[in-house]
């Protein structure tokens, strides 16, 4: 379908880029991205992907908007308190860009639902806050051969990496197994500077866009870390683990696992 005049204007700053152009913008409009977690990372990512004209955006989260979210989850406003995060996020995204079709999934991801959730999407963005979900997303994406962006944030630090099937290590190659409950602090326990979600979530959106338009070098085989206090970005080269339990030639994990969630995260 040709672009309308309105679309030509809306996406003009994209279309003028030789790396995007009409062709790239069409790819974005035809793309389907699933964001798991409408929080600190998912909120900025969802805003930029909607604004960029990613045609179908799925958003999964079981929570409601809480006052303590608003310090960083910029897709929700004070008027949204108590509302389902996916509903609030969907309203903001469609308000920014009516071209975007938003699919909402008011659920946490589990071993039971994740394969169905990711099935229809081209790229998955992990915006979750806990390790059981991060390992579940990794394993499901490896098994379903879906590319995804991992990210984590805490205090003044953040990190991200991109998994593309057959093109480098998965999250489990690097981190093996979730840490025991409460061994590693969560944002709720340790705090996080709000703008960190903006930096790292926007970088996740950037990876999704680059993957869709097929331009540039993704963070495959690399972990990008950001230290806001030192104001330093650092890239760490990641090898593949030939004996990785999930992505190696002879995986020992062939079924999805629901790891136990830290209790402090379960309670609202």
């Amino acid at each position, binding site marked *: 379908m040709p672009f309308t005049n309105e679309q030509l204007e809306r996406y003009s700053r994209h279309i003028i880029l030789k790396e995007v152009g009409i062709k790239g913008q069409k790819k974005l409009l035809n793309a389907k991205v699933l964001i798991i977690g*409408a*929080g*600190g990372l998912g909120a900025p990512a969802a805003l930029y992907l909607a604004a960029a004209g990613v045609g179908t955006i799925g958003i999964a989260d079981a929570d409601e908007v809480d006052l303590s979210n608003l310090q960083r989850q910029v897709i929700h406003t004070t008027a949204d308190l108590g509302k389902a995060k996916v509903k609030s996020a969907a309203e903001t995204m469609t308000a920014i860009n009516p071209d975007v079709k938003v699919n909402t999934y008011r659920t946490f991801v589990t071993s039971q639902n994740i394969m169905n959730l990711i099935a229809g999407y081209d790229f998955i963005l992990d915006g*979750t*806050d806990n390790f059981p979900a*991060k390992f579940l997303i990794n394993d499901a994406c490896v098994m379903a051969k879906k590319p995804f962006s991992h990210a984590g944030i805490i205090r003044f630090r953040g990190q991200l990496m991109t998994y593309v099937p057959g093109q480098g290590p998965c999250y489990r190659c690097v981190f093996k197994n979730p840490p025991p409950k409460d061994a590693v602090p969560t944002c709720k326990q340790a705090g996080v500077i709000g703008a960190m*979600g903006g930096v790292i979530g926007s970088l996740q959106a950037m990876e999704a866009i680059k993957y869709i338009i097929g331009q540039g070098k993704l963070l495959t085989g690399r972990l990008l870390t950001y230290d806001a206090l030192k104001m330093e970005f650092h890239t*760490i080269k990641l*090898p593949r683990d030939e004996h990785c339990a999930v992505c190696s030639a002879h995986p020992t994990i062939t079924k999805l696992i629901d790891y136990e969630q830290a209790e402090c995260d379960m309670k609202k």
Partner: protein
Amino acid sequence: MMILTVAGKKKNYPERLTLPALIEQEAVENPDYVTVTINDAFVERGDFAQTILKDGDTVEFLYFMGGGTV
């Protein structure tokens, strides 16, 4: 003395430094759960104690980071 690149920074260290000693010296957070690469290869946790660093090695620490929603 020998030169190591640790977390992207070149610094002098005493020779025959072990990996656990470096982890302590660098005040690595949650050392029981850190992933380590030396010269872009993972070091198995079971091999930490007997890993002795050599002049010119590049060492990286990879930390668990949750964050996102809640």
